[in-house]
């Protein structure tokens, strides 16, 4: 393996492998698939947040000329194995996925699919959906987690009993799970503390906001083979869900990944795919295309989870934290599965503390069932914890950065789950902040403030595979089922060229369908490049050992006597006896063991924990409450930046999503539980005009495992923004913010409620 200095491609900002296709409009996304005889499908969605479905009459729709199939929940097979769950970081039970796909006895949220029509044109399909008659009995909606936990709340599921380690409940409830974790002695923690701060925080439902609406095309062949072209974060993930949901063998379930126009965790469970397949089946195997519009994306996909949080932290006068407590109530939407696990790990992740108590509730409400959203669960709890830490620092009279340095975890310290941290670079990152102009330069002017927040993400691991084929001319194709969200083709190309020690121009990476590459888990959880670094390394070792065997045969020595470097194979004791990479490749296709095909998989690696921090300068308009970002700097320990430009891009994008969550974005529900802002006009995502440049400072403390010590980089950037911005607003105004988003209106009223600030 090359040392850091010797690396040719890893660590370089190699241009994106598929950039040309994307700047010329040639890249094919889900909605770009057109097929002969293709039908177009449209869903009828519930206008009610909570309603019993007494009957569905599709007869008029079926009679419309051009309509080829209409489906309702009755067309979904009853799953054989209801205990199964799917997902990456955020699981959904098969029985729930089935009821989510199409409403059964009850519509559980505004936008829940009730029936779907396939027709020869989208106009006809839309018209036909308007003829479907649904008899609803409207039920009281469960609006949020606080009211959902009230004894008088309506129940979403009469068969939902809280999962808990304590006494099994006898009464159904909207609380799906209650978890408790911790260590030490909390009474002692509060007794030892000179200052204790406790406060409560609320965040609202937000959307990942990927620009590409969900889209797929399904076609059922004569032999029952199901083909699906879709933009999802994991092809095998889709294959397994569909196979279980529709009772199909996996070899007959071919999932082809189209380019995906953003996912951020929101394209993991299947939504349109099962519907398109059922419609294709019902219409005799015609290809069926189903594309959401933006209204459906908001109402009918899985957004990010809102939360209600209480945080309590105690510290001694010297700044040492004595105890940490959090009570987290996360909203799962209509079916269980909010990101409480992620939230638990993130919560006090950056802080050393012997006494901790964490309580987490997974609660159902009449909203779309959430999906993951970048560091799922992390942003709301990060907001709450980082605000409280800022308050504690102030109370003990410490600078916020010094307070965090004083309490920062180091390798060997326990995480919130009581497992020890492996190699981490938090201290190194905080040292960089201390010296950086974003922190040291003076900030002058009225109504201005500077805020700091730190964030943690543990990172998913799961299974990754790649295959390296060496062609007869010595060029190489890397084949993988790893969906390219934002650059895996490029980083895999870099890593394969590095490990094989061949020119990068000779490496081509192909992301292929489920039946053309070995099993690979989804692209999510900051895991893809990092786990693939190990899979590629193994595949390259395997390919090189096959190449060595070929060389040994030609050089008439044993394979173990052959050495390899820089496209040259030689005999260890007689270096003059040598063969080039191209000669070995050419001969490989007609001699010995035949063509070279190296395989590499990784199923269990250690996590590579990541820390990030933001320093932000804001100016608050006291008259309107509008927060202007003056300067924004992201710090992150990335282990090893395989491709620095791509790493920066991930961090900038994550930070700006976090900024949107902090300042602008939320689902606005009326008192009937109907979403009132399902458009990109009324759901306000940041534009170029809202932002300053997002400066990036990388720390590279190698992770414990993997050939380069890389860490996943995608998720942690979205954890610090709300805490950093809230702390900056406090510095500017003297007022603490307890709610997201910190819109002008919310800031304005917070200032009013606190005597117009400092």
């Amino acid at each position, binding site marked *: 393996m090359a040392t850091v200095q010797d690396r040719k491609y890893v660590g370089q900002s190699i241009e994106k492998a598929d950039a040309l296709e994307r*700047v010329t409009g040639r890249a094919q996304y889900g909605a770009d698939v057109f097929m002969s005889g293709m039908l177009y499908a449209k869903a009828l969605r519930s206008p009610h947040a909570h309603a019993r479905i007494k009957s569905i009459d599709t007869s008029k729709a079926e009679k419309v000329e051009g309509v080829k199939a209409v489906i309702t929940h009755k067309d979904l097979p009853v799953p054989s194995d209801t205990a199964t769950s799917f997902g990456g970081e955020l699981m959904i039970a098969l029985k729930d996925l089935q009821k989510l796909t199409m409403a059964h006895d009850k519509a559980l949220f505004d936008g829940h699919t009730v029936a779907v029509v396939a027709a020869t044109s989208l106009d006809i399909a839309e018209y036909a959906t308007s003829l479907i008659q649904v008899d609803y009995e409207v039920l009281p909606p469960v609006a949020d987690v606080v009211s959902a936990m009230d004894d008088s709340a309506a129940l979403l599921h009469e068969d939902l009993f809280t999962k808990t380690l304590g006494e099994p409940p006898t009464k159904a409830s909207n609380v799906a799970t209650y978890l408790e974790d911790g260590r030490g002695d909390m009474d002692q923690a509060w007794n030892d503390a000179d200052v204790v701060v406790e406060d409560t925080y609320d965040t609202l439902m937000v959307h990942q906001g990927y620009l590409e609406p969900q889209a797929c095309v399904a076609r059922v062949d004569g032999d029952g083979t199901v083909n699906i072209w879709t933009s999802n974060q994991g092809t095998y993930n889709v294959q397994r869900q569909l196979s279980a949901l529709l009772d199909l063998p996996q070899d007959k379930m071919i999932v082809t990944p189209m380019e995906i126009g953003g996912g951020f965790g929101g394209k993991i469970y299947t939504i349109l795919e099962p519907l398109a397949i059922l419609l294709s089946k019902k219409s005799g195997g015609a290809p069926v295309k189903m594309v959401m519009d933006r209204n459906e994306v908001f109402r009918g996909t899985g957004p990010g989870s809102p939360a209600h949080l209480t945080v309590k932290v105690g510290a001694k006068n010297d700044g040492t934290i004595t105890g940490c407590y959090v009570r987290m109530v996360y909203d799962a939407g209509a079916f269980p599965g909010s990101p409480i696990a992620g939230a638990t790990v993130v919560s006090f992740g950056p802080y050393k503390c012997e006494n901790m108590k964490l309580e987490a509730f997974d609660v159902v409400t009449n909203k779309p069932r959430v999906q993951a959203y970048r560091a799922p669960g992390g942003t709301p709890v990060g907001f709450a914890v980082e605000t409280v830490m800022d308050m504690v620092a102030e109370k003990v009279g410490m600078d916020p950065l010094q307070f965090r340095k004083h309490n920062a975890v180091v390798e060997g310290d326990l995480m919130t789950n009581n497992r020890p941290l492996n190699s981490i670079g938090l201290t190194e990152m905080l040292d960089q902040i201390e010296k950086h102009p974003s922190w040291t330069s003076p900030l002058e002017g009225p109504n201005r403030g500077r805020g700091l927040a730190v964030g943690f993400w543990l990172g998913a691991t799961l299974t990754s595979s790649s295959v390296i084929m060496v062609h007869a001319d010595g060029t190489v194709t890397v084949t993988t089922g790893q969906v390219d969200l934002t650059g895996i083709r490029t980083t895999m190309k870099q890593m394969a060229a590095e490990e094989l020690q061949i020119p990068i121009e000779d490496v081509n990476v192909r992301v292929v369908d489920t039946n053309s590459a070995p099993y690979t888990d989804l692209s999510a959880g900051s895991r893809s490049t990092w786990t693939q670094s190990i899979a590629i390394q193994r595949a390259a070792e395997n390919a090189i050992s096959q190449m060595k065997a070929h060389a040994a045969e030609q050089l008439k020595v044993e394979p173990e006597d052959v050495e390899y470097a820089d496209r040259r194979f030689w005999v260890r004791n007689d270096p003059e006896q040598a063969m080039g990479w191209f000669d070995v490749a050419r001969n490989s296709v007609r001699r010995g063991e035949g063509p070279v095909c190296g395989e590499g998989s990784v199923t269990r690696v250690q996590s590579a924990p990541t820390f990030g921090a933001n320093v932000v300068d804001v100016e608050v308009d006291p008259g309107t409450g509008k927060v202007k970002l003056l300067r924004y700097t992201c710090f992150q320990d990335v282990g090893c930046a395989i491709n620095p430009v791509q790493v920066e891009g991930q961090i900038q*994008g994550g930070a700006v999503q976090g900024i949107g969550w902090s300042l602008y974005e939320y689902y606005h529900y009326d008192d009937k539980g109907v979403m009132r802002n399902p458009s990109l006009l009324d759901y306000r995502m940041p534009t170029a005009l809202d932002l300053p440049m997002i400066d990036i400072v990388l720390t590279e403390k190698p992770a414990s495992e993997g050939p380069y010590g890389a860490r996943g980089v995608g998720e942690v950037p979205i954890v610090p923004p709300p805490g950093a911005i809230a702390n900056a607003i406090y510095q500017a105004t003297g007022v603490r913010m307890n709610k997201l988003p910190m819109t002008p209106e919310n800031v304005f009223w917070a200032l009013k409620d606190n005597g117009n600030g400092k």
Partner: protein
Amino acid sequence: MEQTIRKAPLQCRVNGENVEVLVKPWQTLLEVLRDELRLTGTKEGCSNGNCGACTVIIDGQAVDSCLTLGLEADGHEVTTIEGLADGAELHPVQRAFMEHGALQCGFCTPGFIMSAKAFLDKHPNPTETELRTGIAGNLCRCTGYDKIIKAIMSITEK
């Protein structure tokens, strides 16, 4: 339904070629481009003019093709992302996006490039704020805009 409403002829130039096609009166230019002409480089992100993914250039003006009826393009010159490069020679904005890592998932990219091209044609030396204002109608969720701004500014400096 549609069977009772006649399609109407649309004659225009798309990417320098004469195009003649029958379209439904209510079809948007975006639908005509994607569904009838199969120019799928222009993307549909929101269908109501808020995301800019469907931006094309009509007679030098950047427009949201989802808010333009197909028939409104009659007699006009339409340029889409497919028509921006001169053969193998990319337009400077396309090259700048590639060189600066100004794209990730790439779904907003065609719209951004068309907006940036139309903007730069009229404002060859914008300030950063002018540029941010000029492309504020295009949403990107992957990049945080930083590298997009840098990419476009890199051509104005040349």
